[in-house]
């Protein structure tokens, strides 16, 4: 992360803490015993030197320099019990930070000094596959089987060619014949529906039969064999055998 602006002695330092650690090391082996004040002076001196060559310094260096200068001033004046910040504690914290960085440096060096896999020691280059896949099992359950059956059948049925349903329509001829047969046994008025053939469930066929029967009834009435009557619009159509003597009264058909 070293900025290109950091030349001279700052070159190669990874930030202010790095430089501080280096300076502290030069002072003492034991970081706990370093002189913070001396350290601050040395740090500022190095920075000053660097600034003479290059004016720009990364902000974190300047922040550290300012903080260290402040720390030094606090350390030089006698401790003030009213003071909120304890300069000694801050100095100790700085020492701790330096010590931790030092420890991590040593840990890194310790790691780097170990025989590393792929460098000093080697593992099996071409591992053998120890896993054998048994694919004989089948992943399928009963619902899936039933769904498959239903799907296959539905598809097969849908694919059949379309054949229109054959309709057996009750023709007027049929109706005339049926009417002629039934009319003789008719004692009194009867509704037209009763003359429909039996077993007609399909609504279309039923309506067709009703129409044919009505036409047949009208035809028969015109011949004078029966009488038709409808009290009101959409009311039931009634019919009865015509009285042999009577003349044809008013025939009101639909």
């Amino acid at each position, binding site marked *: 992360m070293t900025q290109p602006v950091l030349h001279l002695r700052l070159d190669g330092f990874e930030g202010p803490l790095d430089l501080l650690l280096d300076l502290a090391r030069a002072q003492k082996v034991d970081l706990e015993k370093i002189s913070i004040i001396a350290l601050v002076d040395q740090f500022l001196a190095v920075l000053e030197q660097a600034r003479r060559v290059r004016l720009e310094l990364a902000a974190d260096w300047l922040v550290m320099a300012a903080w260290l200068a402040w720390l030094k001033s606090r350390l030089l004046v006698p401790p003030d019990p009213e003071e909120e910040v304890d300069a000694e504690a801050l100095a100790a914290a700085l020492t701790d930070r330096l010590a931790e960085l030092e420890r991590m440096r040593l840990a890194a060096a310790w790691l780097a000094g170990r025989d590393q896999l792929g460098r000093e020691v*080697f*593992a*099996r*280059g*071409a591992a*053998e596959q*120890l*896993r*054998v*896949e*048994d*694919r*004989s*099992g*089948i*992943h*399928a*359950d*009963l619902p*899936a*089987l*039933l769904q*498959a*059956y*239903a*799907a*296959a*059948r*539905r*598809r*097969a*049925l849908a*694919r*059949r060619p379309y054949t229109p349903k054959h309709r057996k329509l009750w023709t007027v001829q049929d109706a005339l014949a049926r009417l002629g047969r039934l009319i003789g046994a008719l004692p009194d008025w009867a509704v037209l529906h009763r003359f429909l053939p039996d077993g007609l469930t399909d609504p279309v066929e039923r309506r067709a039969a009703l129409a044919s029967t009505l036409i047949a009834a009208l035809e028969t009435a015109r011949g004078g064999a029966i009488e038709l009557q409808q009290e009101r619009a959409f009311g039931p159509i009634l019919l009865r055998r015509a009285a042999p003597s009577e003349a044809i009264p008013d025939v009101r058909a639909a």
Partner: protein
Amino acid sequence: MSEPPDPQPAPDALPEADPALFAHALRIAEALIFASDRPIQPARLQQALPPDVDARAVITSLLATTAGRPVELVEVAGGFAFRTAADLAPAITKVVEVPRRLPRVAMETLAIIAYHQPVTRAEIEEIRGASLSQTTLEALLESGLIAPRGRKEVPGRPSLWGTTPRFLEQFGLKALTDLPRREELVSEPAPQLSA
């Protein structure tokens, strides 16, 4: 072993090679072949060996000493590699069950066989309304879910197919009668299908 004469030999050394040097070469060869991600060719091994030791000779020696060991040197395409002995494979391999999913066609065919058995292939095709490949039938046969049930006494005497006990096991059925009735699954227009 070809014999490059030892360049700085004790006067009484063997003419072939210094045994200590050869032993060291064997160590190198063993480690290198172990570490390599692909089979080692003699020429490649030679680069790692002391100049006076012949790679071929080292390999020959290593082939002999590792024969019958749990890890043997074998010649494979492209060179030499260590391989675990074949007789140990059952002990060291871990079998992992990876159940297959039946393809849709196979599943439908199986369902039709289950409901219409014994049934011929032509009948299955008619019921499915699609042709049935031989591979599908063979895959089902291989899975042990269906088996032949004799032949139908019609021209051509086609094989009849039915499900197996393995089929019942697979689908957790006690008997074929445990299957839901066909009418519960599809409303058939007319019973003209019982081919």
